[in-house]
């Protein structure tokens, strides 16, 4: 070990002799490109984006030329051209290309820094996103991470050289972050100057740069980790060194390089390359904001487009293809409030964000740069015609408790809140509304050049939920008079009525004459109307609400047409300009485009339908708090075979009320997190989609709630658990007290374990078995089904295990259905199976701390509120733990899955009553308790680690593929390796993590957030899923890593530092294959000769006693990981 290190030191020492000056390098840029062309035919174009010339960043420490930036900028286009001409093939992975890429990254970061100051990123186009701009952002983040690492590396270098002070290196890190500034600063700056500059920059760092700082601090805390990583990557250094040597040689020939600096730099480059860094991908999916989508037309192809937005990006969707054509993402933490097309230029989109920013974006072109707009703190925007007297754009601005209508100046201040604004007739008339207020503005006499409006404010007696206005132009021939003859207004109210004013122009009349006609009342909706729109010709009114029915009001005859059973509440309706389509935004986070003639769906854009968190009211807690002690966890799994498929239980409609009916999740959505596309949605339980969803007492009828989802290893079997209880109102007549109501409801609880088989032909999960009430209720209660607290899938074979409130663990296995001794076959010659409970194990109770003899009814005390269940990787062990209200210590039982025996019962494993999650990783048992993570070595039966985590809602995911596990607490996620005391990676997502998932055979973790977005946490060394084509993720991953790795032999030689280690025979072969692929794999390697030394001792009589042999073997496999030992 020490020897290796020494070697490496020597090596780096060698490289330090090579001279490398930045100035020289920049001057030799062109040659370098040629050189690449000649020598590295494998190309530098790893990504199909031009290689950037921003190499300058390296010149900072002691570089000489101050004119560098200008030169560089000038040269840039040429460079780009050359790169594109010469290197057309996007092949992968040469050292040089990586270097170039790194440079590109830094440049990208430069851009990003600028962009961040504007609050926005570069637009990216979707067709290229797979390997282009989509990756771009990952690269940016990667670069950030790498910079942080680099900083650390530099420090290491400094330590080695013993010459450079720590402060300087830290400063350098900052400078690297801000490459552009750095190049400006030039090399002439003295140390103090630079320090000053750094301070300045530090002070300039906005919140957006927070991540950088955090990384920096992380670097400080995680030095040890990086050190190990560096050692692991030592083999890379050799190759890299060779490449660099050539380069440096050339530079040396130029005679411009300065030995010491160049040497350090070279080393730095090398180290950069071998950094494996965890990083979060960009956000995928998201929830459509509550805003009318806009119909637009592609100016070139004439395709119908739909412009809408999630809170983080603007989407241009193609109606024909049901695909996103173009997206425009905003920086994290900013969300879009409102957007509007420009009246004059329909290719400009005005966007207003919640942090007060507003800007214009040309959505029709890919690379358009947004332009800032005024004012800075609007909440809604509407386009109006911009001419000499009218405002081009109108905004709503929130002030204290009320709203103002703005254009270039404040036009009108309303007395109450306004939410949305609409202009009609090119801004001749402005209509804005809030729940209590309707403001109408009519431009005054058009002859004058006045920009003044007559404003009329109407206080609403019932709250307005939606509004649409329609103008009938006056029939008068004079074109100049653009005053609308009539303004029809439709207002949707909370009481389900639609008020339709045929003409509201009379309100603008003089004081004495002003009047408002009584409205037409269209009343069909039972609950608040969510959306109302006029058809283009004004003869229909289209409305929708919670009833999941689209209502078409034929205004002339009073007839109604219905489009029922839309499966989800209607939130928004938009009529296309041609009037041939309706876009309906629905409560399940999807937008449906219908043709108006036959009401057939044309396109459907569905986002991730993860139930959004509902602010819990006091009512909810009193009603449900007794049964649900913890907040509902997200029931989601990643498909083991299709790593990008996320399966999750979703509600019919995003709940906006915290009631059982709203929050229950009867559907399963399959969502592709790579392409951010909805795949399927199917019902898992009975639901009210085609039924009345209101009971006779106007209470919503609740469907069962799918609480747990699990999928078998082969992806063929899906197990779901759903439960249902009658609403309290239905049993209240039986009871007198609240407790009795709860008990009566529990008696009538229905719990089903459903096991579904994947039907390839239909592309659906088909129900294979349904187990009614798989678990009994706790205590001696007979009536009612007990809730299932945990459901896990057998990691090896088809099988599931459940744990219920009765304290039993049941293992479910398929059994071929046999009739007369012959296996039954179903359609497609598939053997029919039924799922049976193979074993049922009752877990013994833990100590009841002195209450065992108390006469208190034990049934109540035994109410469990938390259970943990986990299979070991080879499915031989099942860990089960239950926490009940009565026990202060949690027992963890280890069950033999084959026999069902309780092999061991540990009380110290969890060490506290708040055991949240358990899991197996290799020989380690991981238990997450309230404020710590315990890693228990099962072989030595000793507590290996205890990592303190902040208290909060915890999530655990274990990824056996890369031997890590991740723990998420609220918004933070830490990645650990079981053998390491510190987190491998720490990250803060700044929003609550709803679910943390690890795919089978996939490195990294998938994070689901409350706003229905998905991010991936993975090693940058491994390509992020999003960037991959459709091929299985593993292959490409492998390919890439292998290419970057030296031949096996060389690598083994490299591993000389761990000579006595042999590979661990892992449970699945994939893992053992991967061991050579994973550069960062730190499992102990047990070599055959080591084993041979134990077993091959000639005659059998000469063998050691069995006990000693076992100890020897265990000593091989169970030794502490090498790296840690080395540390």
């Amino acid at each position, binding site marked *: 070990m020490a020897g290796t290190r020494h070697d490496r030191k020597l090596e780096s020492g060698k490289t330090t002799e090579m001279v490398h000056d930045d100035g020289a390098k920049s001057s030799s840029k062109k040659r370098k490109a040629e050189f690449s062309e000649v020598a590295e035919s494998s190309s530098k174009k790893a990504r199909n984006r031009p290689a950037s010339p921003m190499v300058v960043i390296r010149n900072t420490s002691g570089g000489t030329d101050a004119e560098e930036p200008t030169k560089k900028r000038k040269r840039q286009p040429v460079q780009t051209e050359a790169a594109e001409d010469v290197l057309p093939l996007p092949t992968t992975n040469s050292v040089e290309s990586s270097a170039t890429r790194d440079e590109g990254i830094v440049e990208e970061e430069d851009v990003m820094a600028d962009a961040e100051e504007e609050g926005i990123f570069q637009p990216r186009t979707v067709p290229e996103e797979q390997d282009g701009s989509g990756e771009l952002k990952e690269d940016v983040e990667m670069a950030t991470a790498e910079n942080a690492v680099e900083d650390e590396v530099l420090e290491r270098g400094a330590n080695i050289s013993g010459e450079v002070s720590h402060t300087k290196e830290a400063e350098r890190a900052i400078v690297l972050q801000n490459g552009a500034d750095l190049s400006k600063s030039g090399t002439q700056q003295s140390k103090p100057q630079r320090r000053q500059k750094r301070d300045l920059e530090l002070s300039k760092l906005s919140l957006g740069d927070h991540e950088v700082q955090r990384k920096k601090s992380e670097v400080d805390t995680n030095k040890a980790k990086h050190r190990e990583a560096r050692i692991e990557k030592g083999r890379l250094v050799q190759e890299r060194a060779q490449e660099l040597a050539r380069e440096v040689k050339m530079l040396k020939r130029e005679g411009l390089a300065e030995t010491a600096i160049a040497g350090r730099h070279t080393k730095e480059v090398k180290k950069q390359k071998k950094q494996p860094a965890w990083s979060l991908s960009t956000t995928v999916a998201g929830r459509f904001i509550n805003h009318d989508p806009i119909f637009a037309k592609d100016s070139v192809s004439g395709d119908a487009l739909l412009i809408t937005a999630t809170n983080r990006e603007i989407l241009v969707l193609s109606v024909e293809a049901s695909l996103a054509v173009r997206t425009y993402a905003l920086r994290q933490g900013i969300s879009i409030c409102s957007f509007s097309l420009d009246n004059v230029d329909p290719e400009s989109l005005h966007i207003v964000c919640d942090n007060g920013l507003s800007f214009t974006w040309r959505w029709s072109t890919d690379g358009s740069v947004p332009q800032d707009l005024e004012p800075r703190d609007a909440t809604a925007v509407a386009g109006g015609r911009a001419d000499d007297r009218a405002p081009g754009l109108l905004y709503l601005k929130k002030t204290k408790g009320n709203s103002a209508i703005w254009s270039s100046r404040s036009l009108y201040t309303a007395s109450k809140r306004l939410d949305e604004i609409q202009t009609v007739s090119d801004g001749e008339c402005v209509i804005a509304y809030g729940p209590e207020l309707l403001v109408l503005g009519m431009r005054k006499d058009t002859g004058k050049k006045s920009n003044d409006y007559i404003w009329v*404010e109407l206080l609403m007696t019932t709250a307005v939920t939606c509004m649409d206005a329609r103008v009938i132009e006056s029939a008068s021939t004079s074109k100049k008079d653009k005053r609308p003859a009539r303004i029809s207004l439709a207002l949707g109210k909370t009481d389900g009525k639609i008020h339709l004013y045929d003409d509201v122009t009379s309100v603008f009349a003089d004081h004495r004459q002003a009047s408002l006609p009584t409205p037409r009342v269209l009343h069909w909706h039972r609950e608040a109307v969510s959306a109302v729109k006029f058809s283009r010709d004004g003869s229909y009114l289209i409305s929708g609400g919670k009833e999941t029915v689209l209502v078409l009001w034929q205004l002339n005859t009073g*007839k109604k047409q219905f489009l029922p059973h839309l499966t989800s509440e209607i939130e928004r309706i938009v009529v296309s300009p041609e009037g041939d389509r309706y876009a309906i935004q629905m409560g399940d986070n999807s937008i449906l485009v219908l043709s108006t003639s036959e009401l057939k769906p044309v396109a459907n854009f569905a986002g991730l339908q993860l139930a959004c968190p509902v602010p819990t009211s006091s009512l909810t807690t009193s009603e449900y708090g007794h049964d649900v002690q913890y907040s509902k966890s997200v029931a989601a799994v990643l498909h083991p075979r299709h790593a990008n498929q996320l399966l999750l239980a979703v509600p019919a409609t995003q709940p906006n009320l915290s009631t059982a009916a709203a929050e229950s999740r009867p559907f399963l959505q399959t969502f592709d997190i790579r392409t951010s596309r909805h795949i399927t949605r199917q019902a898992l339980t009975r639901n009210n989609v085609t039924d009345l969803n209101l009971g006779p007492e106007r209470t919503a009828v609740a469907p069962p709630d799918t609480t747990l989802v699990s999928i078998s290893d082969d992806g063929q079997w899906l197990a779901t658990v759903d439960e249902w209880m009658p609403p309290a109102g239905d049993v209240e007549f039986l009871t007198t007290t609240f407790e009795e109501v709860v008990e009566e409801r529990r008696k009538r609880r229905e719990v089903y374990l459903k096991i579904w088989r994947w039907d390839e032909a239909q592309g659906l999960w088909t129900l294979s078995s349904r187990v009614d009430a798989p678990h009994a209720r706790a205590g001696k209660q007979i009536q009612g089904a007990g809730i299932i607290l945990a459901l896990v899938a057998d990691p090896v074979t088809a099988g599931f295990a459940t744990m219920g409130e009765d304290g039993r663990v049941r293992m479910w296995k398929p059994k071929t259905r046999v009739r007369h001794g012959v296996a039954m076959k179903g359609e497609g010659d598939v053997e029919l199976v039924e799922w049976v409970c193979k074993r049922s194990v009752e877990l013994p109770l833990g100590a009841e701390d002195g209450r065992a003899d108390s006469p208190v009814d034990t049934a109540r005390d035994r109410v469990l509120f938390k259970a943990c269940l986990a299979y070991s990787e080879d499915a031989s062990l099942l860990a089960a733990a239950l926490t009940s209200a009565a026990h202060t210590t949690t027992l963890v039982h280890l069950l033999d899955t084959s026999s069902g025996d309780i092999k061991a019962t540990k009380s110290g494993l969890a060490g506290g009553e708040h055991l949240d999650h358990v899991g197996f990783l290799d020989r380690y048992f991981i238990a997450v308790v309230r404020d710590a993570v315990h890693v228990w070595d099962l072989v030595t039966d000793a507590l290996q680690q205890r990592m303190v985590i902040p208290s909060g809602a915890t999530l655990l995911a274990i990824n056996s593929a890369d031997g890590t596990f991740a723990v998420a607490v609220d918004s933070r996620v830490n990645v650990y390796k079981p053998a390491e005391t510190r987190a491998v990676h720490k990250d803060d997502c700044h929003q609550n993590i709803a679910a943390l998932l690890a795919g089978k055979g996939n490195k990294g973790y998938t994070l689901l957030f409350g706003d229905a977005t998905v991010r991936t946490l993975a090693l940058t060394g491994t390509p992020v899923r999003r960037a991959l084509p459709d091929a299985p993720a593993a292959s490409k991953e492998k390919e890439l890593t292998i290419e970057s790795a030296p031949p096996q032999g060389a690598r083994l030689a490299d591993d000389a530092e761990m000579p006595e280690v042999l590979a661990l025979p892992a449970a699945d072969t994939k893992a053992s294959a991967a061991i050579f692929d994973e550069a960062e794999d730190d499992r102990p390697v047990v070599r055959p000769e080591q084993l041979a030394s134990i077993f091959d001792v000639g005659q059998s009589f000469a063998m050691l006693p069995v006990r000693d042999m076992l100890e020897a073997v265990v000593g091989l496999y169970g030794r502490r990981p090498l790296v840690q030992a080395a540390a």
Partner: protein
Amino acid sequence: MWEPTSAISALAFSRSSDSGYNGAIPTLRLAVGRANGDIEIWNPLKGQWVQETVCLGDGKSVDGLAWTQDPDEADNEGNVLPGQQRLFSIASSPAVTEWDLASSEPKRRSTGNFSEVWCFAAQPRWKTSKNVQDEPRSQDMVAGCGDGTLVLLSTADNDLQFKRFLARVAGKRARCMCIAYQNRDVVVAGFADSMIRIYDTRNNSQVRGMSLGVGLPGAPKNAFIWTIKVLPNGDIVSGDSNGEVRIWDGRNHSLVQRLTGHDNDCLDLVTSADGHTILSGSIDGRMSIYKQTLGEGGRKSWAKHSHRRAHSGEVKAMAAFDTKNGLSVVVSGGSDAAPVLTPLREYGKENSRALSSLPQEPKVVGAPRARLIASWWDKEVSICRIARQSEIDDVSQPQRPRKLVAKLSLDVKQAIRSVSISADGKLLAAATASEVKVFQLRRRTDSDALAVRKIHTPQEFASLGARLLSFSSDTKWLAAVTPDNEVHLARFAANPEQPKQLRCLPHTVELDRRHSKRAPSTLHEYDRTLVRLAFASDSSVLVAGDVSGYLDSWVLEGHEDLTAIAVDITKRDSDKASSKDGSDAGSDSSDDDDDALVIFYGQHWTDNPAGHLLPKLDSAPLVLTFRPTVPTAQTLTNGNPGVHSTRHNPHAHSHALPTGEHRLWVMTARHEMYECDVLAGRLSDWSRRNPTAALPADFRQIKDRVRDAVWDVVGQRQRLWLYGTSWVVMLDVGGDLMDAESVALTRKRRRKAKDVVGDSREPKRLKPSSGAGDLVESERSLGPQSLTRTENGHRANIDLTRSEQNADEDEDVEVDSDLPALQLARLRSNGSKGEAARRDQGTEGQRKWWCTFKYRPILGMVPLEDATIPEEDRMLEVAIVERPL
């Protein structure tokens, strides 16, 4: 007991609008026809809606009502006498009935060779045109029959005669369901075979037939055309069993628009006077409103505006009255029996309001001293005894609070119109339109039930029939108002042979009514219909009030002399007789009632000498009651002193007038309050101090009209309990209700409120101009009620609820200057109820007024007395009869 009011089946206003009359505007009445054949005449009274008279029917449902007005006539002096308004009805029979409103009896029937009449309509009034010098023509009527026959009837010459057949439509379903005149010559009829046929009455030809076409899926193939109306511009509106309202062009008879108004049958519809609004009612109780708006390109089109559930049952009949600035209201009725007023012009801005379904005249009478309650229905009278409170509470033998003690089933042909029971419960009189029957009630010794004995009354009295009956408080007199509005009196006395039995003296007397000079009315004799009778508490004064507000009063002259001959018929006094002799010499023998003076036990009735001084009331009196006086124990033992029969004066009688104050307390249909001293012929002092303005504001806001009053007079306590269908109010009339200052202020304010509409600070619309309910509260209003208009930075608040744009600003200012004092006055007068009461108790120990809405709907309130309790301890005891539907 009393049965619930039956469903409304027809409604008609005597005219639909104020416009179109060049002379005097005819009086406005609403006729409400019910399923049991009753027809009620309501007076809208500019929005106060009071039921004036009831014409009792024969049990056949009134299917249609129509009013006509005879042509105006010019008298010799050139004054235009407006023509008489006549009311016609159809029931499920082949006849059209004309009603005599004055007597509330059918006047004539016209039958013919046609089957039962399903619908009928009156021709529009003849209008004088300058071009054609033509004699004014009367209005014809057209009736549609069940066999598809259309009949023309003429109302000319104050008659109703068959004119001719207009058409006979053959076919199985050729039932004429509805009919309307498009103009004076063209009749539009809707049939059950989903056809609308148009006929020209001039040449009996069918102009056009329009079919509804195929019915809605699921509905019968043939739609019924339930109703058809014609808009002022000639367009035809039909409502059918598909729930659709269709509008047809009046000239070319093409379908203009079809509107889906209802999910069920549309049974009736009405149009506004300007023809821009249609309301339709359906079988599910909903009323829809349609308005004409400018559609695309300036084309006028109709659209359904909104609907609301107006009735719990179906909407069977609707009628509209719409004038520009006055009443603008739709009345609808159905199986829930209560007419509902829906604002027409102010739809959505004013509430609709249900009128009472109970008769205005309480169908409950009581004998307080005997604790009996009598109520009647059709031909039956039920008498109940109310147990004393102590008996009910009796622990050992608790009594049922109410016990039916007698049930009289009269052998009469018509329904009972009025019943009266004497205060001591010994006599009960019941009258139909042609009979009066009197019974003596005696308590049986063996059981609770009453022994009923019919008392023979003189034939001329018994066959009179009566619309009103009233016993005097001393049970000696029975006053009966005949259907022809004559007042007759009968005297009851103990039978000398059987002292326990009462008998009716063999002569009765008719009292002359004062023939006041009347303004010419289009209802002619109806205005003289007497609606209220009242005896003074000492039985010496009788007052009757008629529909137009005139009061007639009579006094009992002389002193009772039981020793005198029971009935002494004499000539009138010489002076009177001599004056009469000249004129009535010829008719002397034939008309001896007029001349003869009937003296009962030395007493006789004569006109109140001060009767001409009594004021004419503003509207019909609803409450006529004498303030009870403490009887002045002045019964003379020796009869009339100094009155002795002589040879020259064989029928000597006293002319002594009753002494003491006889204060008559009146409340009119407009809820104006008066008290007059009848014998003095002037308003009493109390009334001068307490004009109507002194009534508490709470009371003035009550819309239900008063039905009757009960006195509570014990010692110093003088309270008057008034009640309406839904309220009971106590007024302490012993003292002043309000001090003079406040009264003056309130009066002023009320005047202002009347003049100025839209003064936002006042409680709005004490008198809604449109005739329906109050303004809709802001929380429930359909749209915003005010707007803020901002122009050039200048803000102005505009009230959108005001109905009239020409509110006078000067008046506003004047009211504002009055405000501080006014508010003070109001605070003192009502403030909050509790506060007012406390203040009153603090100063005088008694509440001046009290109000409750606890009981509803009140059919009647009957005072009871408990003789076991000493009089000074007696609290008022009443039985309230509720009649929930």
